């Protein structure tokens, strides 16, 4: 049978893949947003695995709220991205150095 540790190892592998994706695609903001979604999916899998093996529904409720917050985050992030492209003509993260000291 599949143990809890198998799910934990799986989600930690996917978490690290998402983390590496942020570093690899450092200049592309859309890819960074998608890697954040990947990391959230890994974390949610962790929550649900603990919820299943602990017979406690609180983990699934937590995943529900994480999904809500992630959807709001994506909507606002993509709106900011569209605004940035409109103002600067590029979504390269190296162009956005206005606030650099």
């Amino acid at each position, binding site marked *: 049978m599949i143990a809890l540790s198998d799910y934990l190892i799986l989600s930690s592998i996917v978490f690290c893949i998402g983390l590496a994706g942020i570093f690899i695609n450092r200049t592309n903001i859309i890819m960074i947003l998608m890697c954040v979604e990947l990391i959230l999916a890994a974390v949610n899998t962790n929550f649900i695995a603990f919820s299943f093996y602990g017979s406690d529904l609180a983990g699934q409720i937590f995943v529900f709220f994480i999904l809500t917050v992630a959807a709001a985050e994506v909507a606002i992030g993509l709106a900011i991205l569209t605004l940035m492209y409109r103002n600067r003509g590029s979504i*390269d993260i190296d162009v956005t150095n206005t606030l650099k000291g």
Partner: protein
Amino acid sequence: MEFTSILFYVFSLFFVGSSLVMITSRNTAKAALWLILTFFSAASLWLLLEAEFLAITLILIYVGAVMVLFMFVIKMLDTEASTLRAQFTRYLPLGIFVSLVVIVQMALVLNAGPFDLETVGLPDQHGPSYSNITAIAQQLYTVYVYPFELAAILLLIAIIAAITLVHRTQLNSKKQNITEQINVQAKDRMRFASINKKSTKGSK
């Protein structure tokens, strides 16, 4: 090996493999499509964990709404700029190094054995009459009803913020112009017309 174990390994293979292809993909649109496959396999894994409501929610919200939003933005913006591709391999060693450190740290915790089948064990099996949606709804509308309403307000704020950020042209709405109202003169609002007496008699 049981059938559910085989399913677990197949879905895990898709989960890890498609996410690996996604982060190494140079085309952003293709990366979004691979991320959709990742979400599907994650939803399948959640089904194995008896979280049916969340699995359906993941497919409906993420694949149906969020990834479509991503595809819209990818197709509208010029993401194929050459500067985006040039620095692809520049941060590859750093990325591999950081993820290896995290993998080693997590492996040290997970290999210690507190989450093994002997320690944790399998949960109680639910009967066929068990409904995950009913169980979640009972929790959500009793214990977590206040956070649930806060989540609704959060989504409303997100809608308002997104519309306010990208909204460019003036809406055709009726609104007050205060300075125009203050500076108005009587001649702007009233018009004195000289009425001919003969024409008024003739109309009688």
